[in-house]
């Protein structure tokens, strides 16, 4: 009869592999991400309600919104900056939120990795495209010397 092997308690080796944490992660990324979510959230409340107020309530309100209204706003550096801040903060806030949801709910590391790749690519495309639009927006584009139709620009 063989002696029963009893592992010594508190040896640490008895923890199932699933629960073992990889080497401790140095760095403050998770702390900064957590802080960013709170700060960007507060700023976004101001930006979004300011945006809604100016677009929908001031003056003629919602009836004033058309191509010309948007073109007029983006001719002003103040609104360019406002919309840029809104775009970047909302995208980073949302992306980080979905990143934590993926971390919480994906069970396999590979699933986690690919979901996050899709997420980051989508966020990058929208941030870059949006930034380009805000800064290169031209209400009166001229293509091959011909004014594009629109009716907003002096002929």
């Amino acid at each position, binding site marked *: 009869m063989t002696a029963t092997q009893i592992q010594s308690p508190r040896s640490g080796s*008895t*923890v199932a592999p699933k*629960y073992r*944490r990889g080497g401790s992660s140095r760095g403050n990324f*998770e*702390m900064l991400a957590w802080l960013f979510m709170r700060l960007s959230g507060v700023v976004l409340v101001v930006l979004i309600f300011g945006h809604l107020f100016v677009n929908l309530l001031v003056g003629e309100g919602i009836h004033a919104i058309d191509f010309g209204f948007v073109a007029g706003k983006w001719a002003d550096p103040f609104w360019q900056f406002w919309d840029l801040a809104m775009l970047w903060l909302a995208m980073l806030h949302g992306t980080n939120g979905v990143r*934590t949801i993926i971390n*919480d*709910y994906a069970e396999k590391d590979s699933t986690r990795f690919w979901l996050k790749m899709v997420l980051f690519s989508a966020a990058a495309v929208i941030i870059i495209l949006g930034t380009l639009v805000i800064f290169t927006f031209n209400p009166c584009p001229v293509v091959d010397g011909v004014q594009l139709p629109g009716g907003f620009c002096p002929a």
Partner: protein
Amino acid sequence: MSAELAEPASKIELPAHVGGGGEIPTFDITLRVRRYDPEISSEARWDDFKLTMYGTDRVLDALHKIKWEVDGSVSFRRSCAHGVCGSDAMRINGRNRLACKTLLKDLDTTKPITVEPIKGLPVEKDLIVDMEPFFQSFREVMPFLINRGHEPTKERLQSAEDRERFDDTTKCILCAACTSSCPVFWTDGQYFGPAAIVNAHRFIFDSRDDAGDMRLEILNDKEGVWRCRTTFNCSEACPRGIQVTQAIAEVKQAILARKI
């Protein structure tokens, strides 16, 4: 010696009219217990037990009645049976509770009462789970006093205010009800979990302890306090009424205050 004793000896079954024993109402319950025995089957199953219980009985009494009178193979942990040892945390009607502190009359007895092992830890048999991952996280936060000063000849004195600062988190009995109620812990078991953070809090905010910085550094890990989503499951589950989510928030703030 008189033939008529005024009071019968304590071990004699009391007639209903003497001790008031018969005044406690009885009711019928169905206890639906999650069974798992890897020596018989790799699949877990539900077993229903119909019992007649008293109004003063707890879920633990029902489990005892099953084990002692109906099916001796039902396995569960319990030690003190009075809410202090933290052995009998289980999922009762979907909520983490101590079986010894949950009165049957407080549950809906018209429907079967479900009893399951706590979630997120490997089940060993029936209601018994492997607590080792839970205790590993507990050990990692160094839950003991670290003082770099000279060893005092008498006790280490502390003002009542300093003691009050961490009073709430001294109540932990390590039953794992909080950690195993946390949805972040359920996913992959990597998160330190509320219990480890509560026990770190107990020393971080203790004026006699000198290793608060080390504990904060440990909990600044990517599996540390920042994985808390403040769902309050842990505060709701704690049988000692510890404000667990608040303790975690205080540790978060302590880390922030130290870094910034």
